[in-house]
């Protein structure tokens, strides 16, 4: 077993374009995430430990173990338009899987199609980024990854507290604080969702294209 850096989040990036894979990898690494890139939805599922023919029925015997995930993946970011399995198909498969559905999924697309955006968000995508993706877009990812880690820690903590027989007022306070923070994260993410759809509906995209950097005289 290897030593994992707990503070580092691991993102799985899926894109059939080699240029976009290189780009997203660099963007993610610059944002201090660990990255794995794959070029298809099926390879993504393989990496996540979900194999073809796996069902969500625990009673079905499967030859390959379902939860065989070597590395923990904290977020999946995928292109929408891909040959074979689209990003939407991949999203669906992840959300339908009992072992993977808690993993946040973000969709990227070069095409600004409001119905596509809504469909993805309804299916459970956390964000929808228009390509080309920028560093500023990636800032929206951290809350989603924290939320999941938070929930996991929350569950573990609750189990511990039940065993340790904590004082009730302290416990209530802690739970309230956690709930409040979760609410904030939820709000933030739902605000972001609205933003993505709004951007899709406006006729013109006005985004500051240039940032000031030093020149050499």
């Amino acid at each position, binding site marked *: 077993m290897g030593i994992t850096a707990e503070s580092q989040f691991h993102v799985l990036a899926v894109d059939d374009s*080699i*240029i*976009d894979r290189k*780009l997203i990898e660099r963007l993610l690494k610059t944002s201090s995430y660990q990255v794995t890139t794959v070029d298809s939805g099926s390879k993504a599922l393989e990496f996540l430990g979900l194999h073809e023919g796996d069902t969500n029925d625990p009673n079905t015997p499967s030859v390959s173990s379902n939860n065989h995930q070597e590395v923990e993946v904290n977020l999946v970011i995928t292109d929408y338009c891909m040959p074979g399995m689209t990003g939407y198909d991949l999203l669906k498969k992840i959300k339908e899987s009992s072992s993977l559905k808690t993993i946040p999924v973000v969709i990227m697309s070069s095409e600004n199609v409001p119905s596509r955006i809504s469909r993805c968000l309804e299916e459970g995508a956390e964000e929808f980024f228009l390509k080309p993706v*920028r560093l500023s877009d990636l800032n929206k990812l951290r809350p989603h990854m924290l939320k999941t880690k938070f929930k996991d820690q929350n569950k573990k903590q609750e189990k511990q507290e039940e065993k340790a027989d904590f004082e009730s007022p302290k416990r209530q306070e802690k739970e309230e604080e956690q709930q409040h923070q979760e609410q904030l994260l939820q709000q933030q993410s739902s605000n972001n969702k609205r933003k993505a759809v709004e951007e899709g509906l406006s006729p013109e995209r006005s985004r500051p294209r*240039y940032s*000031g950097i*030093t*020149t*050499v005289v």
Partner: protein
Amino acid sequence: MEVGQMQGRLVDYTKSLFMEGFLDGQFLQLQQLQDESNPDFVVEVVSLFFDDSEKLLNDLTMALDQPNVDFKKVDAHVHQLKGSSSSIGAQRVKNGCIAFRNFCEEQNIEACLRCLQQVKQEYYLVKNKLEALFRLEQQIVAAGGSIPMMEMGF
């Protein structure tokens, strides 16, 4: 020519590429992702773009040369080229692809052929420009200078 002069030339040249619409802000994004740990990032991505584009342009030429043109296939290629050119900031190529896709939808073969010519032209133009840009950068580095970062005030 000393380093300062070369750097000035590079800045002017890069600015002109933006002014003339060859490149857009996405190219700046690429430059911002380059640093000491990834000093060749832009050249690497752009090289991938060159390889990918040339293959796509060949595929497009062949696809449009068929007796029964498969417009779905043509559109798929153009979509890919539009995506990659957009990702590196090759604005004119991207715009050419947008027009191209419209004609694919109309299944207008003559217009598609014209668009292909146009996109090819734009591609080779930006390729030349970028290669010239990289050569200027190489000269600066070889002379011991550093690559100036662009400031976009316009």
